[in-house]
């Protein structure tokens, strides 16, 4: 049996275990099926890591997977920056008001940029460890499957390093991301009364049960429009276009993974997970990706030119 078959069988076994946990033990003990069961959170951590591992496994000869001194230091810098920015901008230190239920979370640009600039391993570490430290510093508690979701944002943003020609896959990635954004947007229009589970406004006594606003609902479409604009406006600057486009896909898949896991973990309906949780998180992230990631790419290019590295 070759290695790929072995990994495939292992994945099927893990899926079977997951199904057994949810539908087997869940039937005997409801706590295992939904609610705040920590075990299920870690099951999704393993699933998220397996996704990354499978991508690594099938492209393991690619130099993008090498981890040397530079990658170790960049991992640490990315994770520390993500943690610090998450802490500062999560309303505990540097109060940034939310607009029409859209809270500003600019820190998400860090795993996207570090993933794109320094590779998928750096992106994964930056997102996952940075989010964990950020949550710990903020005091909101630890949500491991969301940390892995953030890790996947950085990981997927770093995948263009696997391609010899970054331009080749760019439009496919853009339209795939666009299609996913459109599906999520349509779900919003079909369920406009869904509560925004991420919107907390203690001053007005609102805790995740206010109806999602039109702007929060369509923010993913606004974000996609901005990403597409950057992609075509900076068509000549491949780095900006690729960083923003792959960052968008990473954001949709990574945050989508974390939100969908809450169908099992928190007992959300698919609509609540996608419209009430995914859209208010991933939509604004796309707007930050479209504005802040290009700024970082341009600034980093200038540094590279000056230092010659």
């Amino acid at each position, binding site marked *: 049996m070759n290695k790929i078959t072995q990994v495939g069988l292992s994945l099927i076994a893990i899926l079977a275990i997951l199904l057994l946990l949810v539908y087997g033990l869940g039937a005997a003990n409801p706590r295992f099926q939904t609610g705040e069961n920590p075990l299920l959170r870690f099951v999704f951590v393993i699933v998220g890591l397996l996704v990354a591992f499978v991508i690594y496994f099938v492209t393991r000869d690619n130099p993008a997977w090498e981890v040397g*001194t530079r990658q170790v230091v960049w991992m640490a810098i990315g994770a520390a920056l993500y943690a610090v920015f998450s802490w500062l901008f999560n309303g505990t230190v540097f109060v940034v008001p939310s607009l029409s239920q859209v809270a500003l979370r*600019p820190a998400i640009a860090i795993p996207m940029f570090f993933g794109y600039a320094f590779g998928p391993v750096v992106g994964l570490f930056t997102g996952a*460890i940075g989010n964990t430290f950020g949550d710990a510093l903020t005091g909101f508690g630890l949500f491991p499957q969301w940390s892995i979701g953030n890790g996947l944002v950085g990981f997927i943003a770093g995948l263009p390093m696997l391609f010899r020609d970054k331009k080749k896959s760019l439009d496919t990635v853009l339209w795939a991301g666009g299609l996913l954004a459109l599906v999520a947007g349509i779900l919003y229009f079909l369920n406009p009364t869904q509560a925004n589970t991420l919107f907390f406004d*203690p001053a007005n006594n609102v805790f995740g049960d206010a109806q999602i606003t039109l702007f929060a609902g369509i923010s993913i479409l606004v974000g996609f429009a901005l990403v597409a604009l950057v992609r075509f406006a900076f068509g000549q600057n491949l780095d900006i276009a690729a960083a923003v486009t792959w960052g968008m896909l990473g954001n949709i898949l990574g945050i989508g993974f974390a939100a969908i896991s809450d169908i099992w973990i928190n007992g959300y309906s698919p609509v609540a997970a996608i419209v009430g949780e995914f859209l208010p998180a991933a939509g604004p992230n796309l707007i930050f990706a479209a504005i802040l990631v290009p700024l970082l790419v341009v600034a980093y290019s200038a540094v590279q030119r000056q230092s010659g590295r």
Partner: protein
Amino acid sequence: MLVAWRYRKRPNSLIQKFDPRAWLIFYACYLVAVITFWDIRFLLPFFIVALVALLTSGIRWHEIRRAFLFILGFVFFFAILTFLTGRGGMEHYAEEHLLRQFRAPFSIFGWVPTLNITIERIFYALSQLVRVSSLAIMTILIPYSLDPRLYGITFKGLGLSDKIAYAMDLTMRFIPTFSRDFQLTMDAQRARGYELDKIRGGLIEQVRKIGPIFVPVTIHAIIASEDIIDAMDLRAFGVGPRTWLDELKRDFKDRLLIWSGLAVMLISLTVGFFGYGQFWVPEAVIRWAGG
């Protein structure tokens, strides 16, 4: 320049008598055990453990005051808010037993602000307070009692590879440094007239205004990393198995701490799996309330 957490060696600290690996394993087990429960009877022993750890840590009040008051203020704020609104507790109880109701003598567009004081809300707020305080106290002790020089060897000793252990080490060291850099950059931009404290305008305008602090801090961190990379390369980092200047030794008391932590975690998970330790209100109090 690296800015360090407020660690210092404390001669009478109980935490510092243990191997940092043993303490971190115990801490991880403690976290898992605490989040398994909502029953205040199960949570109180954990709270007592946290208090013992705090009081024997050797950390003086003036050192920890700011961080402690901030976190406790945060915990109290949310516990009181939960008590006043009843939100969050609905997942844990279906019925509420009213003790007293306060109605405002005015109405806002037909809505009369009403505060219902119920047995369930009181116990839920208390349980939340004990649960989150236990976690917060144990977490806050780590940066004050774990020697930054030992971060790397500790993570290595926990089974991580050299590279990941060193990356974790650097991450923990960089966090206070970048917080300081952020503050410096914000002060510098303020001096140049940027109103970073009061970000106004539309969404895109707000994001654009974040750029002048976000980009310099990030790029400065990347530029500064070159010195660290050079220093590590000069010491042949990653060429072979890494040796560490400091050596950690585990003795009987460390093994005892690890096994105690693992036992508590496993017992808690088993107890929780069989449905014990869920949100609890004393029957006698419910009867007293007329339920």
